[in-house]
């Protein structure tokens, strides 16, 4: 695909999918419905990456988000959702302020983008291949890469430590 071309029909399908599923995440009353909507939203984002000529990011999105993060969220829901059948008051009292604040934030960022002209430049595409991405990772970005691996290790140990049953004798 020559880079930078824009398929309006595909874009609007994907955008509608992502936004509908995102609204579903925020607005569904039962959290398990929200989790399913979140999984479909992540899939839609993977399609968006594919439309943007970023096949590697799309694949990693499916692997990490759809595969791993969704499972972790599902497990957390199953471990905690003994809600005793009480689903009332699922919005907190800040909703009155949160909705206008979110819309106002969107408008401010949109105005900033339009006025800065960052998006005005035409349609060029880089279309990096996997070989070029791997060269970048292991040459220019090797220090962040190693740091990220350290962070992942620390997060893994920390997650196990936090979620472990405290006081192993009373199990």
């Amino acid at each position, binding site marked *: 695909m020559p880079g930078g071309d824009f398929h309006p029909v595909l874009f609007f399908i994907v955008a509608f999918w992502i936004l509908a599923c995102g609204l579903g995440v925020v607005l569904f009353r039962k959290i398990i419905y929200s989790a399913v909507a979140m999984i479909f939203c992540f899939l839609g984002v993977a399609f968006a990456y594919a439309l943007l000529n970023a096949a590697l990011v799309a694949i990693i999105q499916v692997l990490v988000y759809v595969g791993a993060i969704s499972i972790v969220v599902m497990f957390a829901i199953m471990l905690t959702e003994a809600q005793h059948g009480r689903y009332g008051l699922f919005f907190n009292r800040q909703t009155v302020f949160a909705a206008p*604040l979110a819309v106002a934030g969107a408008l401010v960022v949109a105005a900033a983008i339009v006025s800065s002209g960052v998006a005005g430049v035409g349609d060029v595409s880089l279309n990096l291949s996997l070989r070029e991405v791997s060269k970048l990772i292991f040459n220019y970005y090797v220090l962040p890469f190693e740091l990220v691996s350290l962070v992942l290790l620390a997060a893994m140990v920390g997650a196990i430590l936090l979620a472990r049953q405290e006081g192993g004798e009373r199990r």
Partner: protein
Amino acid sequence: MTALEWWLALSIMLFCIGAFGVLARRNVILIVMSLELMLNAVNIALVAIANFRTGSPGAGIMFSLFIITLAAAEVAIGLAIVVANYRTHRTVQADSFSEMKG
């Protein structure tokens, strides 16, 4: 509107949906999920800019890959905290975290 502006508009809308979820929901797991939506929105913006702008090739792709990795770590830690809090408080509502304040 150029193509990049359409993609950035999608990113902004998804980001603000996530921000609304973070601000307005009471369930902590749902707050974590809304945070993931916001991170995905940022990734869409990064990949779109990497696709449509020249200069510093691959920076957007790299940043989005690192953000995905850190999001995985963040979800693991955050949900571990939620589960640990659930053990002591028997709830996942955000109000129950108020005991943490000094």
